[in-house]
């Protein structure tokens, strides 16, 4: 009986662990069909089906409160100049109902309902579908083409074609005389993005709205022209059902859909979507924010950062972040390479913290970068710090030497140290973000005496410091390895 209880407790712990280990949002991030995330006056907003939306002060903790009139389905939002253009759809009934639909656009100067600049203009219909059409005019996606300044809207569902129309970026209305163009088929929740001469059409395949059984997944095709053809990695046209996977189910979440791209700065991008069922939140539909990576000019969702014990490897040289303490040699039997082995092989044991920690000084210890030897002074335990807030898509973390409370910290003078005990001070909290190339940047929440945002840099092969983030330099990039 007792044994059974222990097993149950262990099972519960095992269930609880992944949520903490892979935290991306907290609060009440409950939404369906979220729009692309928009930043307004220092706060993040996303709007969903049904009229409301979510607000976040830091991008990690989300709660309701965003307001969007018109109800309807699956809005998108795009900042153009000093205003926000919101597109949403008045649906006719969905899969088994009418396929009459309409997409409408409206403007507001602020997304903050408390702002005097908040207030939506009268909606304007920019696209529609009739029951006889091979199209459902819902699920709009907006793109302001940075190459041309032209504004585009894609829309549609599984019921026929995904269509493209051009809007006037000054008014949000349809460009006069513009005719819808078919660009994909048999997908929905599409979005258009542009990068380095490529136009990308992201769509959602699979089964919608089926909770833990929803097979929704996000795919992509690309084209050199906004009008297509959008081909997948196999050269298959999205008009023929093509699409390369961007994000599927995983991490106890199913039903990825409604892609949105958020560019923080060069090399730092996030994608938003919903998971139709978050198993750790009772199967509710939730906002998801993940790193957006680019591989061979294809977008792919990055992984949420997983808590654990890591080598922190510099991209610059491949050396590892370590405490600046004496290297303690290990004893092992020596063998002549050319002589046959006659005695039994006895595996060596790893060096442990107990083997070396007594020789470490008290107080602050500097850090440096050195050859990785999987020694205790090179193993960093990284855990989220509850109650310390976060940033877009992740919480702040503490970075301590495994088995100790010794924590990495930013210092006055834009340098680094380790403090003997983690206190939760902002200079001991770290923002960890996967970059578009798959490496990571590591950024302290605050740097004492410095207002500038700085990141952990390899200022030399063997010397870490704090400096400005530069995606073009491997000095700004790190990898988390378990080996």
């Amino acid at each position: 009986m007792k044994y059974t209880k222990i097993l149950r407790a262990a099972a519960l712990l095992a269930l609880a662990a992944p949520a903490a280990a892979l935290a991306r949002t907290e609060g009440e991030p409950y939404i369906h069909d979220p729009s692309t995330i928009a930043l307004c006056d220092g706060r993040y907003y996303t709007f969903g089906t049904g009229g409301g939306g979510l607000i976040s002060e830091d991008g990690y903790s989300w709660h309701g409160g965003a307001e969007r009139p018109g109800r309807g389905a699956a809005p998108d939002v795009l900042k153009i100049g000093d205003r926000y253009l919101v597109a949403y759809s008045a649906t006719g009934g969905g899969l088994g109902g009418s396929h009459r639909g309409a997409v409408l656009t409206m403007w507001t100067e602020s997304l903050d309902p408390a702002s005097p600049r908040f207030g939506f203009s009268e909606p304007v219909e920019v696209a529609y579908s009739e029951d006889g059409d091979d199209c459902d005019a819902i699920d709009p996606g907006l793109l302001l083409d940075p190459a041309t300044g032209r504004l585009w809207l894609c829309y549609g569902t599984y019921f026929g074609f995904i269509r493209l129309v051009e809007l006037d970026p000054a008014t949000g209305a349809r460009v006069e005389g513009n005719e819808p163009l078919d660009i994909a088929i048999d997908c929905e929740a599409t979005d258009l993005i542009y990068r380095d001469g490529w136009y990308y059409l992201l769509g959602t395949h699979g089964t919608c709205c089926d909770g833990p059984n929803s097979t929704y997944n996000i795919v992509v095709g690309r084209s050199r022209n906004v009008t297509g053809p959008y081909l997948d990695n196999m050269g298959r046209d999205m008009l023929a059902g093509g699409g390369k996977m961007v994000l599927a189910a995983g991490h106890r979440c199913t039903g990825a859909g409604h892609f949105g791209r958020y560019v923080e700065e060069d090399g730092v991008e996030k994608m938003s979507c919903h998971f139709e069922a978050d198993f750790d939140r009772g199967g509710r539909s939730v906002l998801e924010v993940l790193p957006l990576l680019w591989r061979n000019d294809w977008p792919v969702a990055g992984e949420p950062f997983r808590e654990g014990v890591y080598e922190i490897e510099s991209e610059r040289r491949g050396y590892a972040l370590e405490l600046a303490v004496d290297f303690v040699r290990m004893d092992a039997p020596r063998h002549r390479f050319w002589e046959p082995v006659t005695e039994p092989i006895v595996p060596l044991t790893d060096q442990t913290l107990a083997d070396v920690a007594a020789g470490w000084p008290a107080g602050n210890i500097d850090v440096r970068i050195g050859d990785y030897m999987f020694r205790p002074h090179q193993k960093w335990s990284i855990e989220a710090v509850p109650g310390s807030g976060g940033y877009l898509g992740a919480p702040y973390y503490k970075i301590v030497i495994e088995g100790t409370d010794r924590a990495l910290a930013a210092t006055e003078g834009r340098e680094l140290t380790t403090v003997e005990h983690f206190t939760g001070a902002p200079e001991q909290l770290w923002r960890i973000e996967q970059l578009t190339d798959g490496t990571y940047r590591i950024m302290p929440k605050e740097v004492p005496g410095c207002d500038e945002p700085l990141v952990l840099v390899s200022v030399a092969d063997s010397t870490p410091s704090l400096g400005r983030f530069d995606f073009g330099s491997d000095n700004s990039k790190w990898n988390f390895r378990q080996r």
Partner: protein
Amino acid sequence: MRKHLLIMAAAIAAAAVFALGLQAKKPSKAPLFEPYFSYPATDTARPDSAGFIRRWLLLDPIEKPNRSNTVFTDSYLREAFRTEYFPGQFTAWPVSGQTVRAGKQKLAWHGLDSSLFNVKLFRFATLQELPHYGVLFWAVTAIDCEEDIPDVRMAVGSNSASMWWLDGEEVLLLSGDRRMVQDDAVSRRLTLRKGRNIVRGAIINGPGMSDFCLRFIDEQGRPVTNFTVSIL
């Protein structure tokens, strides 16, 4: 009178011999360090185009036997580098040709220009037929600035371990069995002050090659070159 003449002639001859000896001394030593070093032909030098400082006062190697470079932990090095081996080690400004005594060794300072960006200490020792394994080298130079140069870092690569001081303050330690790598380790941000800044370095080596390279870099990692280097 004749005796006086003889004395005078002898004195002249002795002076001539001495003078010839002095003159002959430099030509005979000059080729000694080639092709790795040459004697400075000017009072001041500039860092090279990549910022590396090539003009140094190098002390003949101090014997410090070590059969392996793996002993060079931080603790060992702090002990080894903070030990005073010769008077004025951390404070005196040496003159080329000056000798100092370190234990039983009589060691000379040599003011030299390195032909390479990396100062080949191993060759500096072997070309003089001095001990070259299990040794400790000292290097000194002066950086003269027309104005303060803030937010620079001293960037060093050394074989093997080394410690570096700027105006008497320790700014950098490279521990372990090191290979000479450009910008292997750097100091924290520091200011090269208007006027003279003294750089001192100690490089320790067991077996194998020994050399170092040193330059200053700015916040973007670019070489700092707007100063002159002197050993006078």
